């Protein structure tokens, strides 16, 4: 391939890419690379073994997945059908601040900035004046979710129904299968086999090739480690350590089971705090995903199992499985010619449905910093910095959920309340606690979570006291009515999904 410039030295482009591991991480990567990289310039292989199970959970997603699918040209309806998906408007958190508390963490800001002041300050003022209305009531998304109604956002920017996002609950295994079909159509070669050995180059320690259980040797220029917790390449071969965050996030196990869904379909995930962890309920079209995340130091496997099984919304339809994990992050996601994507690069419990999101970011950034054979350190450093930043931001947000509690009914919650937290989180928490201020570059809707868990600012924006209270009352009442009115115009989630499943 001739370069037009004579006097600039360019190293060769990468030709062969090998992805080790299937599952969501592997096939998302394979599909995205096959779609993005210029045709015929790259060979992409994915090595997976039917004998190795995938984690097989991770069903709740974030709105970013829409962009991912769109960039691959995947039709939304087709996607919903293929993955038995339902719509997700947010997560409802129960019993986190206190037992019997509940709040919605919606996919949108709550209320509107008014006269330069964030909406929740008006809510705080109302509260101080004796009003007892939940913050949820001012969120079109939260109210729609609770009323089991949904339509995609309105294109008209003036509408109350224009500024929210939504995502899906999906069958992750079906999603991987769907992406596999997509990728194979775009010439991604699937190789059945288990990696038994890894050959590294003598001179620079780069991975040269992997050896499979059938003796086959697969060489490549770039390796993507999607081998899950095993981290065959990034850890076992390249020895990149795992930074342990379990002192901040002590849960280390999850017992999971699929059940029938004998209750109405809710367009939101439910996360109910338990004595030493929490339980998820994720509705798909054909079943309910259930899981109890817990810490073995505080509750036994048997008790955790009982808690889960005694609170299913329908009969169990799979064998319950136990997964073990440790919260943390690979020190470097990209080292030499190996990029770890998915569980091999880090793990954070799915409290805010971030696993697939982190995979998506990793893939987007890999494409953004796509190397040639030089594997320039500057790009690798930038990639690692960015991935680390995302992991840490999300980690801090999850710690917030555990730490910002008034629960003291178990040793686990006592630990969470008393533990020292990362400095950055301390700063953000103080920022909200003292004056109700929010850093909007953070992940998630902080006023929803903080207020939802009982972190009430000591002082609302003092300028609000200069506004006549009857005007504020009027504004709040009107707003609430507008929210209700807007929600009532939406179809039921059942009708919406019925319509989606009917087409095509």
């Amino acid at each position, binding site marked *: 391939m001739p*370069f037009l410039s004579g006097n600039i030295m360019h190293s060769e482009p990468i030709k062969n890419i090998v992805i080790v591991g299937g599952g969501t991480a592997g096939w998302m990567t394979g599909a995205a690379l096959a779609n993005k990289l210029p045709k015929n310039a790259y060979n992409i292989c994915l090595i997976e073994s039917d004998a190795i199970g995938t984690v097989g959970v991770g069903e709740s997603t974030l709105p970013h997945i829409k962009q991912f699918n769109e960039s691959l040209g995947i039709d939304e309806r087709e996607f919903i059908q293929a993955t038995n998906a339902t719509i997700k408007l947010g997560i409802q958190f129960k019993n986190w601040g206190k037992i019997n508390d509940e709040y919605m963490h919606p996919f949108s800001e709550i209320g509107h900035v008014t006269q330069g002041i964030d909406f929740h300050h008006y809510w705080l003022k109302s509260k101080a004046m004796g009003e007892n209305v939940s913050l949820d009531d001012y969120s079109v998304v939260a109210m729609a979710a609770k009323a089991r109604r949904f339509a995609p956002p309105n294109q008209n920017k003036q509408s109350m129904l224009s500024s929210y996002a939504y995502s899906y609950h999906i069958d992750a295994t079906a999603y991987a299968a769907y992406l596999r079909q997509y990728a194979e159509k775009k010439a991604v070669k699937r190789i059945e086999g288990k990696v038994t050995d890894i050959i590294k180059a003598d001179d620079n320690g780069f991975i040269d090739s992997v050896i499979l259980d059938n003796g086959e040797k697969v060489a490549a220029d770039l390796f993507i480690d999607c081998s899950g917790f095993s981290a065959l390449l990034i850890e076992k071969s390249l020895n990149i350590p795992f930074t342990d965050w379990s002192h901040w996030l002590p849960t280390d196990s999850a017992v999971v089971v699929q059940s029938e869904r004998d209750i109405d379909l809710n367009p939101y995930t439910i996360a109910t705090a338990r004595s030493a962890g929490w339980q998820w309920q994720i509705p798909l079209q054909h079943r309910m995903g259930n899981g109890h995340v817990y810490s073995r130091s505080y509750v036994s496997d048997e008790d955790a199992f009982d808690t889960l099984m005694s609170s299913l919304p329908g009969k169990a339809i799979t064998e319950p499985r136990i997964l073990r994990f440790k919260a943390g992050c690979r020190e470097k996601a990209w080292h030499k010619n190996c990029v770890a994507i998915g569980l091999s690069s880090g793990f954070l419990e799915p409290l805010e449905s971030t696993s697939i999101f982190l995979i998506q970011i990793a893939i987007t950034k890999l494409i953004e910093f796509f190397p040639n054979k030089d594997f320039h*350190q*500057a790009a690798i*450093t930038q990639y690692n910095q960015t991935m680390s930043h995302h992991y840490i931001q999300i980690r801090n947000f999850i710690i917030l959920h555990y730490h910002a509690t008034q629960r003291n009914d178990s040793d686990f919650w006592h630990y969470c309340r008393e533990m020292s937290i990362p400095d950055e989180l301390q*700063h953000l928490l103080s*920022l909200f606690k003292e004056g109700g201020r929010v850093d909007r570059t953070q992940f998630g809707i902080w006023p929803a979570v903080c207020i939802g868990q009982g972190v*009430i600012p000591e002082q609302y*924006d003092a300028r609000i006291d200069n506004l006549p209270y009857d005007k504020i009352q009027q504004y709040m009442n009107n707003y609430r009515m507008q929210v209700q009115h807007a929600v009532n115009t939406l179809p039921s989630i059942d009708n919406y999904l019925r319509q989606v499943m009917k087409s095509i």
Partner: protein
Amino acid sequence: MTVSTQHTQAIENIVIIGGDVNGWVAAMGLARGLQGQKVNIFLIEQDSQYYDEPAFINASSHIFDFHRTMGVNDKYLLSNGHAKLTCATRYKNWLSDSSNHYVGNNTFLPAFNGIALHHLTAFCQSAVNSDYSYAAQIAIQNKRIPELNYRKEAFGSFNTGMTLNTQEYKKFLRGAALHLGVKVLGSSLKAVEQDINSGFIKTIVLDNSQRLPVDLVIDNSGADSKIMKNLLNVNYHDSSGTPNFNTLLTIKREGNKPTIDTSKVGAYTSITANNHGWLEDVSISGTNYFRQSCFSTANNIDTVKEAFLTNISPFLSDKTNIIEQRIRYGQSSQFFHRNCIVIGGAAGYYDSPSISNLILTQRAVTRLLALFPSKACFNSTINEYNRLTTKDYNEARDFLMLHAYLASTNDKTTYPWAKTQSDLSANLQQTIALFQCYGRFEDQLNAMIISPTWINLLSMCCRKTASYEPLLAAFSGKDVSRFLAKIKHIINERVTSLPKI
């Protein structure tokens, strides 16, 4: 859930110390943002003697964000000739002697199969970036900048900066501020009284014995600031890294007579590099201005002035007309401390060719309104304000330093004030290293300076090791050239049809 009953009061009295343009930006901005609140804003004007005010400001497009937020009608300034729109910058003698490089205020450039334009021009080594910039061509061809609705096209979009007559802009803001209820204090600051326990400034005492209770002090009294530095002992860090300019030399000449470059009428700001620093030349309010940033001491000031005159001769020869002003690159170690906030020269100074120091003040005021404290000035608010403002100042410093680094890449001349890579911050070094490998630049969330602006400058800095997106190698050079030729043609067609200035 019950709300904590701790209640602190709303701020009632704000005093701004120092009435240069930064002071009036703060006055107008706060008055507007706090309209309808029971807040009294005072400005001590006479302390203006403690800092130097440049004759003109080349403000970046951020100024429009500020004006929009504040409801400022800048059309008045534009129609009176006291402000001018620009859509490009001309770098003269930066890359090699007598070279002219035009850089458009691009916000969007067309991509080739998802690959950004600067990769394409690096790929086709002979391609000149300004050929593919709508904004640069408008400036080069001396055309009038189209109306707002016509600055966004498929073949490129751009924003505009604004060159301002500082005194006129200040008058304008002052008028608006007074109209909004800001009160001018004619007397100077004599003393302050602090609260024994908190150290907060409680009372301002003026030379005429007037005493003012104060809840929030905006200290705009220069780098050797009266309150923040001298009373509250918060240090100002002179920047050791930046080019060690400490002087601005300005000459003005009334009337629109020819300047050094008689063809220069285009809508661009002009920066010429020379041995002493850089030279800006501007026409505004029917006046020509020449301004040299440089380093001077008592010993060399005459030499520096001679060189200045030589650079702008033969139109001017009288060196007694030169206005000399001092600048201090650097920033305060804290921007908000106790109940005092620094702005303007007291906060820091990192004026660079396309991002003016004014912008830092305007962003600070907007930020202050968003985080507006109560009388208690919580630590968390102070920390957050400092964190965000430090980010801005660091970014401005890095942008300035990138200019100093650019000067070091000059093919012919070694500028003594140029900086090498090792002089730059670690962050900036990483940014350059990343760009050097495959022309990459990562968007930062909420950055003050948008990525096309960084990419413009980085492209110039890294032009000798022009590296580009590896994915581009899969496409034929012919296709890329064809794409570029098409863009160039479309832009040219459009620009040709625009009226001249």
